[in-house]
């Protein structure tokens, strides 16, 4: 096993004729919850898309679980009992609105070749058991997002890439999700979770701080507090940007 789940080296992405990621290098270690934080529009989603291999990149290398991002081997499992390699949850829920919650999960379960008992497990994990028979389009935004998350959990992926999974959720639910992320990490899952809310940084084991298409820092919440002398992580982020500009 390679030391890190994700290795990005000098990644550059050009969209619509403009460079949106300017040579990013970073690494994400196995089995931890790594937070990708930065303001809206700083390139978090583009970086995540490059990691799961759906983004056309202009330069640099992205290695995921020891393989180039987007390799067919990352989409398929080694054997029927092996875990799925990579799970990806987009910011907008990518599930079928005109199917029920259960139908959505059954379809994705068949694709990743896992049993229907697993469908019941993930439904329970995201707290949607009572909504199984409901049409997905009729759910609230937060519930739809959880259907999307549940779909990605089906194959027990080794690496979970989650784009703003907790945005707009009820605080109790948000706390439950963070609990689940850490429980997953405890069973050896690597998580990369993005957020534009600095409050969430405190929930992460490690932090990747982004701004305007560049990576500012790879750190931990404690290190960020110590290096800036700010207890509040939002203020610490600001202090760090200021000292970087100066």
């Amino acid at each position, binding site marked *: 096993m390679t030391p890190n789940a994700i290795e990005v080296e000098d990644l550059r992405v050009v*969209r*619509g004729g403009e460079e949106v990621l300017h040579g990013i290098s970073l690494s994400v270690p196995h089995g931890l919850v790594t937070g990708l934080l930065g303001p809206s529009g700083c390139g978090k989603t583009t970086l995540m898309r490059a990691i*799961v*291999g*759906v*983004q*056309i990149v202009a330069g640099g290398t992205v290695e995921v679980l020891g393989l180039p991002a*987007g390799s067919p081997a990352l*989409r*398929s*499992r080694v054997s029927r009992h092996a875990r799925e390699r*990579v799970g*990806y949850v*987009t910011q*907008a*829920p*990518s*599930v*079928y*609105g*005109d*199917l*029920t919650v259960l*139908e959505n999960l059954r*379809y*994705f379960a*068949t*694709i*990743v*070749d896992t049993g229907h008992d697993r469908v019941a497990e993930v439904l329970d994990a995201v707290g949607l058991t009572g909504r199984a028979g409901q*049409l997905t389009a009729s759910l609230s935004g937060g519930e739809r997002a959880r259907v999307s998350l549940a*779909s990605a959990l089906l194959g027990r992926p080794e690496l979970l890439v989650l784009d703003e999974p907790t945005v707009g959720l009820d605080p109790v639910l948000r706390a439950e999700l963070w609990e689940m992320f850490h429980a997953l990490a405890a069973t050896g899952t690597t998580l990369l979770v993005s957020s534009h809310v600095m409050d969430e940084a405190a929930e992460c084991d490690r932090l990747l701080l982004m701004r305007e298409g560049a990576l500012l820092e790879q750190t931990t919440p404690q290190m960020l507090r110590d290096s800036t002398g700010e207890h509040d992580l939002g203020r610490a982020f600001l202090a760090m940007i200021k000292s970087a500009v100066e």
Partner: protein
Amino acid sequence: MSLRVTAATAQRVLWQIRHDPRTVAMLLVVPCFLLVLLRYVFDGRPETFQQIGAPLCGLFPFIVMFLVTSITMLRERTTGTLERLMTLPVAKLDLLAGYAIAFGALAAVQAATVCVVGFAVLGLAAPHGAVLIAVLAIANALLGMALGLLVSAFARTEFQAVQFMPALIFPQLLLCGLFVPRSAMAPLLEAVSWALPLTYAYDALARATDPAPLGSALFLDVVAIAAAGFAALALGALTLRRRTA
């Protein structure tokens, strides 16, 4: 390619359609209604009704499946489900074949309904059997599906996708020979009509509704329909990209 994923995709598309009973009802009722309308529009000219109405039974599924598929596929692209599928162990062929099975089944039901109304109720003549028309209708529906899949890549919104119908299908309907024999058109248009898939779809139906014995021309038409369908599917597959900008 995986049979499991193909079958699951076909089932999923049928599940989606089942949750939209109004669309299903319209898919079945609207062509029949138009046929009845046509019957009474040509009340005094039954031979014209036979000439246009009979082939039309086999063309409705083409038009409808083109529209339904282009919108369904566009939704798949815009809601991010296509992107999710592209990160999963799904081959493009699984997706295309799954769509073809689901929409083929839907087209079969639609073709059967239209043919019953046209040939059994409204008295259109099918000298070689209505079943032949229904089979051609399903082949045409799959051609329409393949074209719809292809054009969905060139639409950003559902408004644009709907516009492909007058832009791409109406000209083919005008040039295929349904309303005016192709030999009576301006030479340039007749030449263009040879390159349009619907020309062969119509030609097959015109032969199948004509009392003259069926020759090898019908077979060649079917070959042309299949070739156009596979070409559109292959081009459509190229537009299903795992990596996008």
